[in-house]
């Protein structure tokens, strides 16, 4: 039975308590929405100032994504401080490659081999001061993925990326 609005002949379903809770829920939701948008602008959902991380290993700097998204292209860049030879060996962990399959690399690898829990790449270097290798990934997983990289057989450096669905 639908009640009447007090002092009128208008039949209407009213519930003051419910309405007040509803309006409160909307206000809370708005705060949450704006916080989410702010987090996104800062890069917490990928692609922003806070989403790129850096590590150093054996004379190279590794720039990777801390936050990424499933199905969205992602890159990892290795910048060498100097180029002592004409090529560089990079080992990348299999687990990470399983989570984010490699689409291509810049430059193309001269050779690839399977190692212990990792894939070994040999890249030719241009020969100027410092070389750069870029890995282009096509992420196919959700959740935290841990990986490691070793440059020219040096100490492996670990890092991790959280993939949003």
């Amino acid at each position, binding site marked *: 039975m639908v009640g009447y*609005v007090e*002092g*009128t*002949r*208008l039949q*209407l*379903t*009213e*519930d003051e308590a*419910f*309405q007040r809770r*509803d*309006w409160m*829920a*909307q206000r809370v*939701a*708005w705060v949450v*929405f704006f916080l989410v948008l702010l987090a996104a602008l800062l890069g917490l959902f990928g692609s922003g100032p806070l989403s790129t991380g850096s590590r150093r290993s054996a004379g190279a700097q590794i720039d990777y994504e801390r936050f990424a998204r499933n*199905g969205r292209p992602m890159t990892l860049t290795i910048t060498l401080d100097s180029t002592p030879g004409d090529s560089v060996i990079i080992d990348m962990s299999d687990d990470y490659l399983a989570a984010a399959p490699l689409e291509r690399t810049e430059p193309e690898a001269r050779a690839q081999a399977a190692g212990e829990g990792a894939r070994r790449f040999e890249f030719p270097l241009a020969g100027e001061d410092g070389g750069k290798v870029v890995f282009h990934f096509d992420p196919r997983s959700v959740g935290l993925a841990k990986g490691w990289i070793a440059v020219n057989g040096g100490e492996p450096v670990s890092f991790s990326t959280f993939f949003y*669905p």
Partner: protein
Amino acid sequence: MDSVLRGLAMYVFVWLILRLTGRRTFAQMTAFDFVLLLIVGEATQQTLLGDDFSVTNGVLVVLTLVAVDVVLSKLSTMWKGFDRILDGLPILIVKDGHILKERLEKERVTEEEILHAAREWHGVENLDQVKHAVLDQSGGISVVPVRRDAGEE
């Protein structure tokens, strides 16, 4: 499995966002509202299909969305409380000729929008001729005009 999960996730998130941003978001089709409707549709389309453009995926996604809709409407007929959570309650915004200003502000409704509904459905000229007005669950405004034959309440 992917198709069903995507459909489910997008349905829930889009519903949640629209439900919590107030009902005026899609009710009246001004150019502004139309653009929003169009863009939200476009934004969800790619996500629903992913990179799978097979007939199987398309059918599964549509099936998921319709199934969710059926389940929710069945639940809301069975349980009154659920219907309220899903769609909210109608809100009285004009009572006996008095505009309930606080409610207008909370729901972001303007006097002009009330006048529009009154003109459209009842050929009413001004607010004095509006007896009651309700902001419906759909986001539209329904108006009870003052009876033209005098002597009515």
